[in-house]
């Protein structure tokens, strides 16, 4: 189920300029971390939610949002909310495409994800050559949200964005 974020359309162009510091091809809107953005009495109220609890990018994202809105002449107030908890379902279609082009395989559905991470099935598609003949190297990767895979056909190692539900 996708829970829609409550965002004023006039604020979207500004939020769209803020990208994820660890995955710069994704905007924070593509990531789905912005849950609420409204202009109330001259102040922009924003609620963001972390992908993973320990994600160090959250502080940077909050700073970048503040800078972007200040530049546009707004006062801004940012709240970090934990509920409802972020899920990879909130990554937009554009976001999933951007991830794949960038070299990160987008998250599979929950059951398929389990099979992939336990090495039961070869279903994660190589971002380099498209082959599904890929192997899990490590359940944990360069950041909390990723696992490490390697393609058996082109030998290229690549990241897989883990499903979080």
């Amino acid at each position, binding site marked *: 189920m996708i829970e829609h974020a409550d965002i004023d359309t006039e604020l979207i162009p500004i939020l769209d300029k803020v990208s994820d510091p660890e995955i710069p091809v994704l905007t924070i809107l593509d990531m789905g971390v912005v849950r609420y953005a409204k202009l109330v009495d001259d102040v922009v109220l924003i609620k963001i939610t*972390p992908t*993973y*609890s*320990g*994600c*160090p990018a959250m502080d940077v994202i909050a700073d970048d949002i503040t800078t972007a809105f200040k530049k546009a002449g707004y006062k801004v107030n940012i709240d970090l909310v*934990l*509920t*409802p*908890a*972020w899920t990879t379902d909130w990554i937009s279609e554009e976001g999933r495409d951007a991830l794949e082009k960038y070299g990160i395989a987008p998250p599979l559905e929950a059951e398929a994800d389990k099979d992939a*991470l*336990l090495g039961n099935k070869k279903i994660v598609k190589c971002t380099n050559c498209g082959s599904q003949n890929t192997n899990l*190297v*490590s*359940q*944990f*990767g*360069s950041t*909390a949200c990723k696992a*490490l895979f390697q393609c058996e056909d082109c030998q290229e190692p690549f990241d897989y964005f*883990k499903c*979080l*539900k």
Partner: protein
Amino acid sequence: MKEEIINSAFSSPLGKMPKGQKGLLYNYILGIADNSLILGQRLGELCGHGPSLETDIALTNISLDLFGQVRSYYQYAAKIANNGSNEDTIAMMRPEREYVNVLLVEQPNTDFGYVIARQFLFDVYHFMFLTELQNSKNETLAAIAKKSIKEVSYHLRFSSDWIKRLGDGTQESHKRIQNAINDLWTYTDELFHQTTADKKMIAENIGVDTLKLKETYYHNVSEILNEATLDVPELKYFQKGGKQGIHSEHMGYILAELQYMQRTYPNMSW
């Protein structure tokens, strides 16, 4: 153990401690969060020292998740205390006796077997605990639990997987993981001990009744150990004390490293 007496014998550098219902909730939150802080610190010691690149990254990733969860708990605790403390002072400025983590999580990284055994014995508990905490009457704790359990399910999968690999691996790996399980078993019973704060919060439908989890815990742990061709230890006497602030000799060394910067350069920040 009379935890009230122990705690009142030390004046906390954090300022005035909350009393009554607030104080119980505050202590209850620390009882959850300190486990994750100390285990996270232990895992952090392995950064750059893991037995392979993949396990090194995995263990520090788990550490990062735990620290992230700890931040949410301590931020909430600081809000309740309302005494000028914050997540950093709660994490780094308390004397040893005020940390209420269980003894299991402070046990050293003797070898990879001990690291995995400690993680596994904690993860099984942690996952069960958070499953229940999601239903807490306290909305903040329920929200933190809902967020954390997604991460902890990955931790549990990782450690269970390694228990099986080591147990059902070579003679040497089997021997070492069995030794680690045998040695750490004595710290498992404490996971289910209840302090005054625990009991009061359970009565309020805020806390998790850990006693109800105990049987399933040992059942789940035994199942994985059996699958890993490992023996389930049988023990009559168990170690306890961490939840009352009475720690093993390892705790001082952990805190020395954890607190060094804040003690040497008070109030320093990034």
